[in-house]
C-alpha cells in the first residue's frame, strides 16, 4: 500500500485491463450501468426500431414500392404517398424505408469488418511493439491516414468500376486505422501486466497470448469503436452518394439528399425533409448509444 488510492478512485480504474476472472464482472457491471442510463436505453430503442425497419425491408414486407414510378411527379403528401413523391413519381416513404436497409448494410458491413481488422492488427502491433511487425502496421495506417478520404474512396471506386461494394471496400480500407491505433495503445499497456508476463514466462506461444489473453481484453474498445464506425459509415455514404461515388442501382438517404440538392431551389422539399429526418434520428440515436456504451464500459472516460 505504498500509494493510497483515494476514495473517488475507488472505481476499478484498471478494470479494462484486469485478468479474466474479473472481466466478467466488468461486463456485468457495464450492463447494469447501461440499463440505468435513460438516454442509453432510449437510443437503443430507436436504433432497434430502425433495425426492425431494415429487417422488414429485407423480408420484403415494407418499402417494397421504392422503385415503382407512379404517374405524378412531385406529388404532395397524401394517404397513398405519406411523404409525397419524387421527380420520377416514386414514393418517398418507401424510398426512405428502403434507405434504412441500405444504411444498415453499409453500417454493419463496414463497422464489422473495419473494427475486426483494426482490432486484430492493433493487437498484433501492440503485442509486437517496437518490432518490425509493429513498424509495418504503423506505416500502413500512417500512409492511409495521409490520403484525403474522399479522394481515396474515389480512387477505389474508380479501380473497382461497376463493383457495387467499391464504396464499402474503400471505407473498410480507411476506417480500420483509428480502431487499430486505439487497440494498439491499449495492448501496449496490457502486455506489461502480470498475467501476460506470467503467460510469457511459462512459455505460451506469442500468438496464443495475443488472441487468448490480450484480444478479449480489448473487446470493450471494439464494441465502442464499432458503433462509432457505424455512424461514420452512414454519414460518409451520404457524402459519397452526393459525389456520385455511393451505392449503385439502389436508393439511399444519400441519393435522396442529392436529389434534394437540386430540388430545393425550386421549392420542393419532400426528399429533403424525409431523408434528413430519417438520417438525423438514426445518427443521433447511434451517437448517444455510443456515448452511453462508452460510459458504461470505461469508468475512466471523461466526457458528457
Amino acid at each position, binding site marked *: *500500500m*505504498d*500509494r*493510497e*488510492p*483515494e*476514495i*473517488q478512485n*475507488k*472505481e476499478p480504474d484498471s478494470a479494462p485491463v484486469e485478468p479474466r476472472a474479473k472481466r466478467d464482472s466488468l461486463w456485468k457491471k457495464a450492463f447494469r*450501468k447501461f440499463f440505468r442510463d435513460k438516454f442509453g436505453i432510449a437510443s437503443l430503442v430507436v436504433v432497434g426500431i430502425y433495425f426492425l425497419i431494415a429487417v422488414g425491408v429485407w423480408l420484403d414486407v415494407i418499402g417494397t414500392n421504392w422503385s415503382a414510378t407512379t404517374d405524378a411527379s412531385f406529388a404532395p403528401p397524401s394517404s397513398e404517398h405519406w411523404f409525397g413523391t419524387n421527380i420520377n413519381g416514386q414514393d418517398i416513404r418507401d424510398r426512405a424505408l428502403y434507405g434504412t436497409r441500405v444504411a444498415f448494410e453499409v453500417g454493419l458491413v463496414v463497422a464489422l469488418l473495419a473494427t475486426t481488422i483494426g482490432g486484430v492488427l492493433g493487437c498484433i502491433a501492440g503485442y509486437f511493439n517496437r518490432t518490425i511487425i509493429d513498424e509495418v502496421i504503423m506505416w500502413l495506417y500512417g500512409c492511409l491516414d495521409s490520403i484525403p478520404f474522399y479522394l481515396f474512396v474515389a480512387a477505389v471506386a474508380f479501380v473497382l468500376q461497376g463493383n457495387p461494394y467499391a464504396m464499402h471496400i474503400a471505407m473498410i480500407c480507411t476506417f480500420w486505422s483509428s480502431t487499430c491505433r486505439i487497440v494498439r495503445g491499449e495492448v501496449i499497456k496490457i502486455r506489461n501486466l502480470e498475467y501476460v508476463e506470467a503467460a510469457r514466462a511459462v512459455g505460451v506461444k506469442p500468438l496464443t497470448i495475443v488472441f487468448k489473453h490480450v484480444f478479449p481484453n480489448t473487446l470493450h474498445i471494439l464494441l465502442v469503436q464499432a458503433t462509432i464506425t457505424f455512424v461514420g459509415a452512414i454519414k460518409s455514404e451520404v457524402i459519397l452518394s452526393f459525389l456520385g461515388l455511393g451505392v449503385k442501382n439502389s436508393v439511399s438517404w444519400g441519393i435522396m439528399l442529392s436529389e434534394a440538392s437540386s430540388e430545393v431551389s425550386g421549392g420542393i422539399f419532400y426528399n429533403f425533409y424525409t431523408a434528413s429526418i430519417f438520417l438525423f434520428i438514426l445518427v443521433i440515436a447511434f451517437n448517444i448509444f455510443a456515448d452511453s456504451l462508452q460510459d458504461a464500459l470505461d469508468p475512466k472516460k471523461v466526457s458528457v
Partner: protein
Amino acid sequence: MSETTKPLLSVRELAIEFKTETGVARAVDHISFDLAEGETVGIVGESGCGKSVTALSILRLIPSPPGRIAHGQILFEGNDLASNSEREMRKIRGNQISMIFQEPMTALNPVYTIGSQLTDVLRLHKKLKQKEAREEAVHMLETVDIESPEKRLDEYPHQLSGGMRQRVMIAMALSCNPRLLIADEPTTALDVTVQAQVMEEINKLQKQFQMGVILITHDLGVIAESCQKVIVMYCGKIVEIAPTNELFRNPQHPYTKGLLHSIPRIRKEKIDRLPTIPGTVPDIQNLPKGCRFADRCPKASDQCHEQYPELTHQDTRSVACYHPG
C-alpha cells in the same frame, strides 16, 4: 509557544460523503480532533481509511461533485472553513494553510519553470512584484537546502530529482509563512534515503516557522520520529488519539496494536512471519452496525457487534473501544 487553550485547528464532527454509482459512501464519519499551534499531529491508517480525504477537506479540495462535506465544522483560528466561500478559501490556501502532496512527480506543472510556480504563489498572497518574488523564491530554495537556487528557478520540474521536487514543494508551501502545513504522504513516493532527508527538512522547518503540521502517513516510523500526537483512523472513524510515546508504549485500541505489531523490526527471537491483522477492511458502503473493526478483532464481544463504541477521553488519550488496553 502560545497557550494551547485555543487550538489552531479544531475539527468538529466532520463527515464527508461521496456519491458513487451504488449510493453514498461516507468516507469520513463524524470525526473530531484538535491541533495546537506549533504541534505536529500524525494521522495513520490503511488505504481508504479517510485520512487523505480529511486532509483535503481542510483546504476544501475534495472534488465536488462527487464529494461533499456533509456535516461538521473545521475551525481554523476560530473561522469555520467548512462554511467559507470559495473566494475566502482561496485567500487561505497556500497562505495560512499549505499542503504538500504525495507525488512530487506529478504535483508540479511540467510546462512551467520552478521559478514561475514559486513566484506565482508569492505574488498572489504576498502581493510582491516579480523581481521581489524572485528574490524571495531564491531565499526559500536556500531555506530548503537546494544548492544553486538561482539556477534551479529556471529549470523545469522534470530536470529535478524526486527528492528535490519535494523540497521545492516544501519551499512553495512555506513561502507565505503558513500557520498550518498539511503533508499528505510527503515521503511515500521517494527513495528510502531521500525520505529521511525530506522528513528532516520538514521537522527542521516546522520548528523554525513554528507552524502546526498534520502529517498523513501509513508509515508508523515517520510518525515516531516527527509527531507529538497520533490519530489512528479506521474505516472513516478515529479509533484512537494519543501522544506518540504513549501510543507506541501502550496502544489501547486492538487495531492500533495490530498496526504496531506488523512493523518489521529487529526482534530478540526469530519469528517465522511478520504478524498481520487477520481479515479485510469492510466495504465502506456496507459497514457493520457495531464497531467497524469487530470482525477482525480478537477481543470482540456481542456488544462490539451491536453498537459502535464512541470515542472516550481520559487524560491525554482517547480511544473508541469497549475493551481497551
